[in-house]
């Protein structure tokens, strides 16, 4: 079953013809509408007409998260605000979030992509889909919501949290497809046990899980505990959101929707393209986006790509399950966290050279983040209450900046190991 067979199963020749036309349009669009892109291309002496084949993509400059930050909030938008109908945002590497904008057409295309993913998971018009991704600035909730509506499925927009109620609705409304983060899926499985509900009392068939890395072992555990097929979905807000790539029922790589995105795998250091099958950084060019097209966007995610035909019949290339990053970004309960963000919170709290360590763990299937902060002369106070206030202040500032709850631990100076050169800022105890 396909959502859009003519697109998902088009021959390589047809696909590449389509890609080239769309790439030309996109380059033309950003060159004329976005000063930053025009400037970067002019510096390299490139004009849109230089793009004559798909190979020519490689002459174009890369786009990074830094570019989004430099052009905060809407400087990279390629459509006027009168055309933009939606904003989403993800946490940036320092205080400011990364803002993305969508035109009506973008929202419709995004829904098309998510609808394809849902069909990969067995979704039909009468399927009950429970969206337990957070609704709001995060792309997960609304992205899935619109995709499921486009499919014509029965959407239950529970968003995250209130797990017992989620389970009750799941049971009573006979949810078949669950969309959430893999760690939340495990948490739901545990809640089932607590509530004394057997998995056979549910009607779940498929889970479409993403927004954080998860291993094959986690997949086995989820599939076993919930009695479902667990599919991996990939996406990032800078590109569009969930639905950039998704596993079909073969569970052997994620089909990246090549009629919307051109993937490349590069060596993150030399920036040279790598051949299929080799691990490197995934770079994505959007070729059918109006609000915020990105040219050769450095995702910092590590994967490999394969072009062999898939038994499911889809012709789009597959990327390997994503597990690593080329930068120090952590994904905690689906939220992107950079150590530098924690550092800027500590600096704002008056620490000129903060010594801190982030301890990430997964307790009862939920990610936890503990922030160790060395107590300097400046932070120290003679009263327990004042020190507790310091802890609470740091925790609440982190919550305000990142939207995640952390446990702050005050430690003695020199507790945190100093290494030559780059300080070790993170200990990730999660079993990946």
């Amino acid at each position: 079953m396909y959502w859009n067979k003519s697109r998902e199963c088009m021959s390589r020749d047809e696909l590449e013809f389509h890609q080239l036309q769309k790439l030309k349009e996109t380059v033309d669009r950003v060159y004329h509408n976005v000063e930053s892109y025009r400037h970067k291309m002019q510096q390299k002496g490139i004009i849109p007409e230089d793009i004559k084949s798909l190979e020519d993509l490689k002459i174009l400059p890369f786009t990074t998260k830094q570019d989004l930050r430099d052009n905060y909030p809407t400087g990279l938008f390629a459509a006027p605000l009168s055309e933009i109908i939606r904003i989403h945002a993800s946490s940036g590497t320092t205080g400011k979030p990364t803002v993305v904008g969508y035109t009506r057409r973008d929202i419709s295309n995004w829904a098309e992509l998510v609808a394809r993913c849902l069909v990969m998971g067995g979704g039909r018009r009468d399927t009950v889909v429970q969206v337990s991704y957070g609704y709001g600035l995060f792309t997960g909730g609304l992205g899935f919501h619109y995709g499921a509506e486009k499919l014509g499925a029965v959407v239950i927009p529970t968003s995250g949290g209130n797990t017992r109620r989620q389970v009750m609705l799941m049971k009573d409304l006979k949810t078949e497809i669950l969309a959430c983060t893999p760690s939340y899926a495990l948490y739901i499985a545990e809640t089932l046990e607590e509530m004394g509900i057997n998995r056979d009392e549910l009607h779940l068939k498929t889970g479409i899980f993403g927004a954080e890395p998860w291993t094959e072992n986690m997949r086995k555990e989820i599939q076993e505990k919930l009695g479902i097929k667990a599919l991996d979905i990939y996406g990032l807000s800078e590109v569009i959101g969930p639905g950039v790539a998704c596993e079909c029922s073969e569970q052997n790589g994620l089909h990246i929707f090549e009629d919307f995105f051109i993937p490349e795998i590069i060596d993150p250091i030399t920036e040279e393209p790598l051949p299929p099958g080799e691990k490197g950084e995934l770079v994505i060019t959007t070729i059918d986006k109006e609000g915020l097209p990105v040219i050769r966007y450095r995702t910092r995610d590590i994967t490999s790509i394969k072009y062999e035909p898939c038994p499911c019949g889809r012709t789009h290339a597959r990327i390997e399950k994503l597990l690593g990053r080329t930068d120090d970004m952590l994904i905690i309960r689906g939220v992107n966290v950079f150590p530098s963000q924690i550092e800027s919170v500590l600096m704002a709290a008056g620490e000129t050279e903060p010594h801190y360590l982030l301890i990430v763990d997964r307790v009862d299937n939920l990610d936890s983040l503990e922030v160790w902060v060395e107590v300097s002369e400046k932070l120290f106070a003679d009263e327990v209450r004042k020190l507790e206030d310091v802890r609470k202040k740091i925790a609440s500032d982190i919550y305000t900046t990142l939207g995640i709850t952390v446990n702050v631990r005050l430690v003695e100076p020199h507790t945190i190991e100093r290494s030559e050169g780059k300080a070790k800022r993170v200990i990730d105890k999660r079993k990946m």
Partner: protein
Amino acid sequence: MFVKQISVFLENKPGRLAAVTKVLADKGIDISAISIADTTQFGILRMIVNKPEEAMAAVKQAGFPASTTEVLAVEVQDEPGGLNHALQVLQQAEVSVEYLYSFIKRNEDKALILFRVEDPQKAVEALKSAGIKIYGSDDIASL
């Protein structure tokens, strides 16, 4: 009128308190009052010592965050109701007590209690006018 107290930050883990007392022992510093306020994560060690400046420098050198605080050393009768008398006086003067602990040594039938209060000046006035003796650094040194 006030006595200098040294406060040291300690993590709640084995050996930390002993590390501080070793630093002081090595310097031949005498501890005349000591207390710990603890939470699940950390504690604050508070002490009155005979050589505060030296003790402070040694503790800091050993890498412990430390600060000095001025506290009141109040004499109370070492008998039932002795401490209560001083606290009643403070309460009537509407002075809140942050914390208190007692001296190791005593002066005949008198006990010495160290007070950290919200408004030290007001506390001193109230205690004095109630006839309660407050010790200065010199008084303590001669104990």
